[in-house]
């Protein structure tokens, strides 16, 4: 009888790990040689990647489709206004406060929202996000509806340092989200999460607490969005309820994940690169690029369900970040 082994890595996955490491080294050095424009685009690309990875973790692996994650971007951003701008705390420390607050608020919200399932959950999260937008819009101490400039929070920090720190943070979040989601999915919790997506009753029957796993993921995702939200507005230095708690965050993230490939770690990476490329070329045509992106998402949804990367995986069996366990018959040595 041949030996049977379970394989969790592939040659490509070792390449994936090396590639990620190389990118991290490259990113660390970038502030010394890259220009301001490149760094700014890099920051935006990397934090968008982080948001897309986390949304993909919730939707593609956990089956939790949320259209309301902008609530936590807003909480992270407004934590800056409240603690750093109004109360004078260190802005970088405030990022952690924003993440903690987002997670803290997410817990009671999840109690309520988990009463809704599927599409209803999606719209429910959007309504809760709207509540946050309206609260910020009516809170004049935090700038009210027209928003507020928080440039004062970073006064005294040398511009080079500010840019470099923003870039390193964005790189840590963007590349870290890939590594984090990968490691999480290969853990016991990841297995539970994927089981739950495939069938909640079946997961219950093998001893997975559905509510506990979903709550955990929802709260963790909220904290991550809060952290990214803080970083976003620490680079923009101006915040308004309509820009912070905007459905456009969800639109961008959802399109990126759907087109790149929902339920794969490589998918959001492909999606983000495509999104930034398209935007670069179509930016001059106004609203057209959102129309193109929307059409692309619909076509992908109808023809290749796994998105671009799902198709690549199906054809070439190429997985840089494999999260499945495969039984292989190993020849006897």
């Amino acid at each position, binding site marked *: 009888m041949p030996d049977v082994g379970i394989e969790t890595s592939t040659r490509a996955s070792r390449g994936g790990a090396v590639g990620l490491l190389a990118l991290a080294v490259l990113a660390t050095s970038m502030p010394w040689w890259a220009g301001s424009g490149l760094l700014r685009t890099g920051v935006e690309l990397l934090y968008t990647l982080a948001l897309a990875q986390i949304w993909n973790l919730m939707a593609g692996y956990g089956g939790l489709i949320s259209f309301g994650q902008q609530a936590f971007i807003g909480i992270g951003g407004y934590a800056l206004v409240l603690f750093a701008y109004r109360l004078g705390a260190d802005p970088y420390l405030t990022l952690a406060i924003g993440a903690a607050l987002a997670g803290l608020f997410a817990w009671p919200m999840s109690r309520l929202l988990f009463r809704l399932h599927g599409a209803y959950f999606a719209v429910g999260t959007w309504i809760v996000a709207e509540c946050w937008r309206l609260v910020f819009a009516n809170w004049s101490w935090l700038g009210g509806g027209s928003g507020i400039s928080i440039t004062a929070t970073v006064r005294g920090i040398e511009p080079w340092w500010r840019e470099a720190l923003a870039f390193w943070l964005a790189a840590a979040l963007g590349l870290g989200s890939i590594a984090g989601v990968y490691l999480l999915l290969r853990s016991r919790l990841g297995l539970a999460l994927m089981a739950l997506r495939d069938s909640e009753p079946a997961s219950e029957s093998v001893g997975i607490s559905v509510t506990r796993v979903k709550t955990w993921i929802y709260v963790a995702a909220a904290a991550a969005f809060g952290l990214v939200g803080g970083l976003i507005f620490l680079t923009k230095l101006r915040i308004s309820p309509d820009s912070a708690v905007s459905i456009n965050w969800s639109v961008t993230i959802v399109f990126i994940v759907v087109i790149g490939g929902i339920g794969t770690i490589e998918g959001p990476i492909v999606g983000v690169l495509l999104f930034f490329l398209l935007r670069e070329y179509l930016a001059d045509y106004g609203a057209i690029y*959102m129309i193109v992106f929307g059409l692309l998402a619909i076509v992908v949804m109808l023809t290749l369900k796994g998105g671009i990367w799902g198709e690549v995986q199906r054809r070439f069996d190429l997985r840089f970040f494999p999260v499945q366990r495969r039984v292989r018959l190993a020849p006897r040595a």
Partner: protein
Amino acid sequence: MINLVDTLLQGSLLGGRYALMALGLSLAFGIMRLVNIAHGDFIVLAAYLALVTVQALGLHPLAALLIVVPILALLGYAVQRGLLNRAVARDIMPALLITFGLSVIIQNGLLEVFSADSRRLQAGNLSSIGLSLGEGVSIGWFPLMTLLIAALVIAGLEQFLRRTRLGRAFRAVSDDPEIVQLMGYDPHHIYALAMAVAFATVGIAGVLFGIGTIFDPALGPPQLLFAFEAVIIGGLGSLWGTLAGAMVLGVAQAIGFRVDPGWGILFGHVAFLVILAVRPQGLFPRTRDA
């Protein structure tokens, strides 16, 4: 006291508008278990269609109903047949994401064609005349008319679903699409017809929305959220429940607006969340499974 009566009245009338908007969503859910994220954008699209019709033909906006409603019904048939039927009913994700994409396309398309300027369908003095009900309390004719139309459409739909062959087919396909095939119906065709009926109500809602208030391309998503709240508050699958849910939402918003103009919409959302907390099945649920 008068203030309270007035607030309740205005809120209920506002509920009439929301009820009309929510009917299509309620119907599509009841029959196809489908949430159309672009629902609000189709309402706004209908308002723009009415605007074009009025400008091109010089009609009264209400007469534009004769053109807008059939176009929307055709559009509903096409959207269901061409896009949503391909998305498997068991997996909600494709339909959800496709309609999310449609929402963005419609919004940005309207923005390209009509710009972000606010528009309104001019209906002469119809939208301004009111009916005085004694001291300090008066109601607008137009909101009252909207509420009555909503009630009439619901009554008509109920009769249609109960008494006609097609209505029965809608209910049958909702219960079990596979068995319906044995009875000689094509579920895809039935679904598309059901969406056509749902979109016809969207057409009516859109025209009355355009007469009742100023609109711009970005107003779709809020209408979706209001319609959704009305459906969930009222209880899934019940059209009269949707009317009741819309009234509750309207009154909650009216009370909020009375407290502070900035809080109106928020009060509506909070009322929805409170009802979700204490009575998640809604006030008058008919369909199991949400």
